[in-house]
Structure formats: C-alpha cells, structure tokens
C-alpha cells in the first residue's frame, strides 16, 4: 500500500507542476499563431543568410543601408509601402521562394517593427501576394522609397 500511495502522490505533484507551466506555453503559442505562420528557426536563418549581412543583426542598418528597425510598420501604412518592401531587389530577386520570402518579411515585421505597427497589428504577407509583387522589382529604389515615405507622411493620423 505504502509504495503505491507514494507513487500516486508523486504523479500528483508532477501534474501540479506541469499544470503550472502549461498556461505560459499555451499563451505564447496562441500569440504567435494569431499573427502569421512562421517557423522561427527557418525565418531567422533566412534573415541571417539573405538580409543581415547589410541590414545588420538587429535590423538597424548602417550608412546607406536603410533601417528595417522601427520602419517595417511605417511602410505597412500604405499599399505602396507594403509593395515596396517586396519589390526592393534584396527581397524580389533573392533566391528565397515565395513562401520563404513571405515568411522572412513577416518575421522582420514581428521582430523589427518596434512601435511602428498601427495598433500593434498587421496583415501578414502571403506567398501568393509576394509572388505577384516580386515580378516587378524596383529600378529606382531611393526615389521610390522617398516617394512612398512622403505619401505615408501625408496620411491622416
């Protein structure tokens, strides 16, 4: 009887300990799933391999390399800005396929937007949307960027 009882108590204790941990896991999963389907490891790897070399590890950019940090959400405020982030050559002509490009863009939005997202929300890019937009890569990047940002600056608050 005694060993059984101890065993039962042990299981109980384990269950109590587990139930204390589970709510945290459930919340963080639900949060990630609500925004976009992102494989964190794959997205980070693609950022490192195809973006980070110039945009730097935290997305700050340097000199002529524009920042992603604090800007991703700004560009998302207009359709032109949304398209700009896919049509820049670094995105459009990268060797990532449409799904991977959409994923890494969504990952960047989630990691580098800081407070720039309106209400902290955004509509994730899909492979289909990215696939269409990247067929017309930008030639005049600096001018287009300035024009897009000027248009966004004129938007009502």
């Amino acid at each position, binding site marked *: 009887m005694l060993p059984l009882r101890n065993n039962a108590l042990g299981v109980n*204790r384990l269950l109590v300990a587990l139930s204390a941990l589970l709510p945290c896991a459930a919340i963080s999963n639900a949060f990630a799933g609500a925004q976009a389907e992102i494989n964190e490891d*794959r997205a980070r*790897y693609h950022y490192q*391999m*195809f973006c*980070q070399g*110039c945009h*730097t590890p935290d997305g700050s950019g*340097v000199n002529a390399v524009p920042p992603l940090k604090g800007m991703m959400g700004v560009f998302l405020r207009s359709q032109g800005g949304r398209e700009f982030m896919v049509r820049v050559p670094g995105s459009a002509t990268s060797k990532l396929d449409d799904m991977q490009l959409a994923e890494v863009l969504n990952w960047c939005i989630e990691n580098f937007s800081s407070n720039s997202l309106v209400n902290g929300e955004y509509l994730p890019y899909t492979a289909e949307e990215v696939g269409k937009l990247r067929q017309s890569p930008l030639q005049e990047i600096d001018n287009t960027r300035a024009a897009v940002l000027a248009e966004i600056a004129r938007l009502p608050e």
Partner: protein
Amino acid sequence: MMSLIDKLLERRARAAAQTASRRGMLKTLGGVLVGATAVPLLPVARAEDGAARPVEEGSDTDCDYWRYCAIDGFLCSCCGGSANTCPPGTEMSPVTWIGTCHNPADGRNYVISYNDCCGKSTCGACLCQRDEGDRPPYRPDKTNDINWCLGTSSATYHCSTAVVVGVAFEE
C-alpha cells in the same frame, strides 16, 4: 439511507486523512514555487543559447580551420586579432557577407559572418582563399570578391574574421 451516506463519507474522509497530510498542500505549493524558479536553470531553457556554440577543433590561425570554408583574405587571427575580433587599431565592418560552413567536429552546419576589419593597410599574413559557396558578384550578398569595408569610417581592408552567428536551418 443516511447511515449509508455517513459510512461512505467517513470512509472517504479516513482515506483522505491517510493519504494526504495536513501540510501536504503547503508542501506541494512550495515544491511548485521552487520548481518554477529552477526551470530557467535547466538545460532545456538554456538550449537556445548553447545551440550556436560549436564544438571547436583545430587552430584559427590555420587556413584549414572549419570556419574559413568560404573566406578570401588575410586571417585576423594571424594579424593580432582572432576569428571573432579585429586587431587593435582596426574597425569591424558591420556590413558583411554571410555563408555557412560545415563543422566536422560536431557534424553541424553553422551560419558564418565574414566581417572584414578595416582602417589599416593590408595585413599580409596568412592569406587564405577557400571560396566554398562563394558566388559571382552578380549575387552580391554571396560574394567574397568585393571589399566589404562598407559600413566603416575607412574603406581600407586589413583582414577577415569568421564569426559564428547561428546554426544553419536544415531545409
């Protein structure tokens, strides 16, 4: 009827008294509290930090060293720096090119950032050219044929590092 319920309750109460101690709840709660604080110390929680830490074998002053699989330049470890750091008096370029190398010591592929050190004339020691995964300049983010001293105050190339920035994702 009442005595039946009475007996049943009594049996339950006695059983509970036998299996649960009066301070059992406190003990369990205490265990959970202490356990929860210990969770971040367990290897599970630290796995991510350790993930990018490769098993090291070989010398970083040797061109055959695993991290140099795609390097083209002078090894900073022969120039007063290391595979991760620039020699004194030079500045590490924040703009760089990034590739992957296979580490035979642990069988994993790692993401390597080949940051150049800039601001002093060419080091000249330990020239190393391996070029695995190097691509022509029309793939500018994957070529080692250009001077990567781009984000620094001086564009003068001195030597190259090979910094591990992560583990490669296996597609």
